C-alpha cells in the first residue's frame, strides 16, 4: 500500500509543474511573519505556480565551480562616534526609559 502511494507521488512530482496549494502559501506566509487575506492567498497560489514553473529552467544549469575571490575586511576595534540614544530611538513607535518597546512575548 505504501509502495503504491509513493510511486504515485514520484510520478506526479516528475511530470507536473511544482504546483503550490493555498495551504503551502499560508504556511510560507506564517514562516515569513506576513499576514495575508484570502484574496492574496488565492492570487499568490496562482502566480507562484507560474513563477516556480519558470524557475524549473535552473535544473538545466550545470554544476559550476564557484571561484569566489573573497577576502576578509578587518579593522581595529576602536570606539567611534555613532548615533546618540535619542537618534537611535527617534523612529520607534514606542519607547520607555531609553529602550525600544516590543510586542508582548506571549
Amino acid at each position: 500500500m505504501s509502495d503504491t502511494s509513493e510511486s504515485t507521488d514520484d510520478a506526479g512530482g516528475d511530470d507536473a509543474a511544482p504546483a503550490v496549494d493555498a495551504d503551502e502559501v499560508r504556511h510560507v506566509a506564517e514562516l515569513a511573519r506576513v499576514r495575508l487575506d484570502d484574496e492574496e492567498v488565492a492570487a499568490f497560489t496562482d502566480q507562484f505556480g507560474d513563477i516556480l514553473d519558470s524557475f524549473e529552467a535552473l535544473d538545466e544549469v550545470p554544476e559550476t565551480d564557484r571561484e569566489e575571490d573573497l577576502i576578509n575586511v578587518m579593522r581595529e576595534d576602536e570606539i567611534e562616534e555613532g548615533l546618540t540614544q535619542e537618534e537611535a530611538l527617534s523612529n520607534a513607535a514606542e519607547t520607555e526609559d531609553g529602550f525600544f518597546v516590543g510586542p508582548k512575548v506571549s
Partner: protein
Amino acid sequence: MADDHNAFITEATIDGDADADGPLADATVAVKDNISTAGIRTTCGSEMLADYVPPYSATVVDRLTDAGATVVGKTNMDEFGMGTTTETSAFGPTRNPADPERVPGGSSGGSAAAVAAGEADVALGSDTGGSVRCPAAFCGVVGIKPTYGLVSRYGLIAYANSLEQIGPIAGTVEEAAAALDVIAGPDPNDGTTRDVSEIDGADPDGSYAAAADGDVDGLTIGIPAELFDGADERVVETVEAAIADLEARGAETAEISLPSVEHAVQAYYVIAMAEASSNLARFDGVRYGHRSESDGNWNESFAETREAFGPEVKRRILLGTYALSAGYHDKYYEKAQDARAWVRQDFDEAFEAVDVIASPTMPVLPFELGESLEDPLRMYLADANTTPVNLANLPAISVPAGEADGLPVGLQLVGPKFGEETVIRAASAVEER
C-alpha cells in the same frame, strides 16, 4: 517646481557646499527614496517607511553635497526597489516624460523621470537587477550601473546586498560619469567597497568624465545573440543601427555567445528574493517604520505589522522564504548560485576577446501604465538583459540609441570588472553620432 510626472515622493532641499568647485558645483540632484538623507524622510516607496526619517545620510549623499550639488528631492520608486515599472510604489505610479501614458521603467523610475523632465541635472538610482538602466532606457537618458564594490552602499536600504549598486542617471554620458567620479571610492562604512587604485591595470588618477571622449577607434564590441533573440524587432533595429554607427567610427564587432544568460533572469529572481526575505525581516515595527495596533503576541503582532507591505514585496518575501526552506534550498538557491558562477565565467571568457558587450538594455518598448502589473512573471522576464550584469558584478551603461515609434530605446554596454572607462567611452560615441 511642478512635479507633473509624480517623479518625487518628497521635495526637500539639502544645500551643497557653496565653496566647492568642480563639475557638480551648483548642479541639482534627485535622490532615490531608498538612499538615506538625514532629516528627510526616506520611504523606499513603502507604507512601511512612510514616516521614517533617517538620523544619518548615505555616503553618496554626503559626497555629492560636499562636491557642491544640491539635493532637490527624493524620487519615486517601486516599493523597496521591487519592480520594473515604478507602479508598485505606495505613492502612486510615475509617468514617463517621453509619453505620460507609459511607465518610466523601474525601479528607479522617479530618478530617470526627474532627469528626463529637467527637474534635476543628475539623479541617483540603485541597480539590483537593472533598476538604473531600465528607467534610463525607457525615459531616454543615461544610467550607469557600476562594478560591484565601486560605490558605497552605506545608507542604501538593502533589498539584495550581493547584487546592488548605487548608480548615476543624467542627460548625457559625461554628466553621469562626472557624478560617478564623485560617488565612487572606498568607504570604511561599507566593507565591500574597493580602492580602485589597488586594482591591477587601473589608473589611480583616472577620471570617468574624461573618458567620455567618443573615441571608439579599434574598440571590439561583442554582440551576444542571446540578448537580441526574442527582443521586440523595433528595439533590435534601433540598437543595431546605433552599433553600425560605432563601426563607422572605427569600432569592430564580433559575434559572441553567452549561453548562461538564458538562465540569468531566473537565477537573479531566486537570489534576489532569497536575500529580500532575509533583509526585510528587519521591518517588524519595533525600531522604525509602521507598527500595527495589534494586541496579539510577538508573532501575531509582527505578522499584522507586515501586512503594510504591498503585494510585490509580499510576493518576493514569500518566494524567497520558500526558495530557502528545507527541501527547496538545493533545488532553487544552490542552482541559482551555480547559474551565477556560470554567468560570471561566460562574461570572463567573452572579455578575453572583446572590450565591451552590446545589447538592447530592455527587450521591449516602455509598457503602458497598468499593462504588466497583474502579471508579475511577464514583468520579471523583461529584466532578461539587465540581470546577467548584476549576477556577474560588472559595470554597464544604458545610453539612448534612438527612438522607435516615438519611444526611447536604450543600448546597453557591459564592460569587464572596473572597466567603467571603457563603457563610458563607448557610450559617449553613441550619443555623438
